[in-house]
């Protein structure tokens, strides 16, 4: 069991990736940003982020450049990706909350205590999945060992097995709850005052407009049109696919 805990702690710490390959382009992108050339900086960061899609830092930098270039929707989308990768980073949380506020949306859902929201979102979905599987492995291996061991050894393993099983249940429910709260089929409106229509096409009337930067959930598709639900107001409508950046 001690070895299992050691393994879990070791896995919980991020491991550095190869940085040398992207150091020079990242420095060039940063120089563009510092010079106020935000559009070019965003293009440079976009290439870097495409090459390292699991880098929260690059998604964060891309979001900052997009925001400075005046593209609120794309900035929000990048900060959302960065948040999904590294939700405990205070800078990422700050910038995502800032852009959401500019789009008229709250980062912390209304009525939710901020501390509780912080705890709920402290682990990324992949980290929760990892913890869920780690607890599953521990539970199953301990249970198997208990079956093979003698009666006395089995009794000593029982509380550890129960604890691991409890952790399995907790992390599983937490993972499922996070997926329900932040479903993967989300998008961000990247067109200013995007029009949502009653149906998939220009023949249908405009139901309402959505400000740039708002998060939506993609419910369906029909050709170049997407059916989306606006997360904050819960309204539904059809929008052209190029007005949405999928997360």
């Amino acid at each position, binding site marked *: 069991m001690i070895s299992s805990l050691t393994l*879990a702690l*070791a*896995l*919980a*710490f*991020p*491991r*550095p*990736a*190869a*940085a*040398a*390959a*992207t*150091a020079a382009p*990242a*420095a060039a992108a*940063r120089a563009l*940003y510092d010079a106020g050339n935000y559009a070019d900086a965003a293009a440079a960061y976009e290439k*870097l982020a495409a090459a*390292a899609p*699991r*880098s*929260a*830092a*690059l998604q*964060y*930098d891309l*979001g*900052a450049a997009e*925001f*400075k270039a005046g593209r609120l929707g794309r*900035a929000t989308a990048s900060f959302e990706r960065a948040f999904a990768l590294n939700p405990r980073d205070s*800078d990422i949380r*700050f*910038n995502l909350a*800032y*852009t959401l506020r500019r789009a008229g949306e709250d980062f912390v859902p209304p009525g939710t205590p901020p501390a509780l929201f912080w705890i709920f979102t402290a682990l*990324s979905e*992949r*980290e929760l*999945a*990892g*913890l*869920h*599987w*780690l607890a*599953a*492995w521990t*539970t*199953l*291996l301990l*249970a*198997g*060992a208990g*079956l*093979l061991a003698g009666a006395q050894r089995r009794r000593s393993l029982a509380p550890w097995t129960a604890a691991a099983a409890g952790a399995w249940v907790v992390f599983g429910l937490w993972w499922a709850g996070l997926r329900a709260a932040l479903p993967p089929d989300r998008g961000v409106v990247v067109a200013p005052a995007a029009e949502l229509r009653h149906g998939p096409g220009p023949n249908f009337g405009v139901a309402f407009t959505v400000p740039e930067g708002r998060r939506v959930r993609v419910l369906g598709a029909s050709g170049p049109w997407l059916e989306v639900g606006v997360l904050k107001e819960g309204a539904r409508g059809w929008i052209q696919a190029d007005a949405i950046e999928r997360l």
Partner: protein
Amino acid sequence: MRALFPPAVLCAAALAAAAAPAAAAVQISAELSRPQVVMGDQLSLAVTVEGDQASLPSPKLPPLDAFSVYDSGRSQSLNFVNGKVSSSVVYTYVLSPRQPGKFKIPPITADGAAAPTAPLDVEVLTPGSRASAAPGPAQGAAPPGTGPAPGAPAPRAARARSGAPADVFVTASVDRPRAYVNQQVTLTVRFLNAVQLLGDLRYDAPETTGFLAEELPPVRNGMTQIDGRAYQFSEIKVALFPIQSGKLTIGPAVIHCQIARMGADAGQDFFDRFFAMAAPQPVTLNSEPVTIQVDPLPPGKPEGFTGVVGRLTAKASADRVDVKAGEAVTLSVAVSGTGNLKSLPEPRLPDVPSLRFFTTESSSSIDKANDRVGGSKTFRTVAVPRVSGAIRVPPFSFPYFDPERKAYARAETAPIDLRVAPGAAGAAPSAAAPAQPAGLTAIADDIRYLKTADAAGSSSALAAFADLGPWHAIPFAFLLAAAAVAWRRRADEADPRGRRRREALGRAEARLASAAALPESEAAKAAALAADALAGYVADQLDAPAAGLTLKSALEGLKTLRRPPAAGTLERLTELWREAEVRRFAPGGARGDAARFSHDASSLLKSLDQELRR
């Protein structure tokens, strides 16, 4: 009301006014143009101060927090009756509501007034609702049924239909029959006379309820020909700004004058005729009312629109652009053009956290050239930079409606760039700061800067563990295997005879393998092991002790099993059993054949085991 007087009469009036007692009673009254107004519209408050003196005090307006109040001018009238002066001044204010709700305008007073005005109620409606379509009776106006004072001359038609001579009349006309709310309509009142006037002349300006009035001096006098007859005329122009939509009526303009009467009883005598002509005849002349269709402004009002109709330009300037932090800069925003600029509210100060703004003051310069009301209004505010660096004052914007183009437009200033040098310590706007420990001063908010480390990215190993995919089946397989083993163990513990039978072949083969591995020098021992293997296997199958088991009892026992072996198998067992005994007790015969014997015995036991397990 307004008086039309020849210069000599005016001078006399001034002298008489100067001699009037200053302590005469002053009356004050107030009237709203309508009791309801919609947010974004305006209404007018007319305060009339009357008294038997030429110089009347100004009204003291109480604070009206629910409205933005703009002075829209004043009009004064003087009356001279038997050498006594009476005058009245109407002060007009434009009220622009700031918030919806029901409000009460407190009593208004003036120095020397006998009593303040009665409070007035006004309701401000939200833009979604509509104020009463009809203007309704103005609050504070005379109640219905109140007519001219007893004995006053009845109004007469413009062309003296009720006996006034046709050679004296008054007309009223407007330059446009249709206008937008707040668009200027020029009213022209013209008094024409072809005969000599006697005595004083009094002019009562027409009622202009629903309009803001701005006089367009001077009074124009001249001669004109009508139907071949020469007339002397006096002309007054007034700029009217409708403050509500609908059909609005300008009341009749009234002229009270005296003309020389040529009576029918004058006779032929010269003196009779002379005195008959000299006898003054009072005459009251009315113009026809004028109706104007006032259209509401079209939809699509831009943000910040305050109701200005006309055409505007705007210009912003600073008294200096190089300044130190904490020093004051005076920003001036001048708006000029046509329209009722008096009602133009002060612009919204820009949201520049690095600047601290102080109170805005305004001054107006009204221009009435070519009878068009316009001019300029200048707003001045003091700005104090909080921090050093380049600070841009964003453009000031003034939306308006252009009635000529029938569209909304926007007068916008250019931005002002300030170059702010660091100020001396303590030069920041600390004069008004409390004597408490200073906190943070928020200047501007923004997103946070780029990540300075880990630009190449990182990945949580814990998250990567979630991506193992099919490898996650390993613990499940392990558990299943462990469960199977445990079940088997439990089954063995529950059935020791069955376990002995299941393990019989393994034990026998182990003995045979041990026998085969012994060197030829230990052939007797190998033969004993082989014999024990055969006997042990049969004893395990029969659940009998191996010691003392004979070939005969072994064969009989095997035949009694539920699935007895085949006869051939039993024959082979018999042969090998006997060979084992020979080899065991005649070591010379066993030499060199131990391996073959073990192989044969193993083969036999496997066959036997399969037959028993069928």
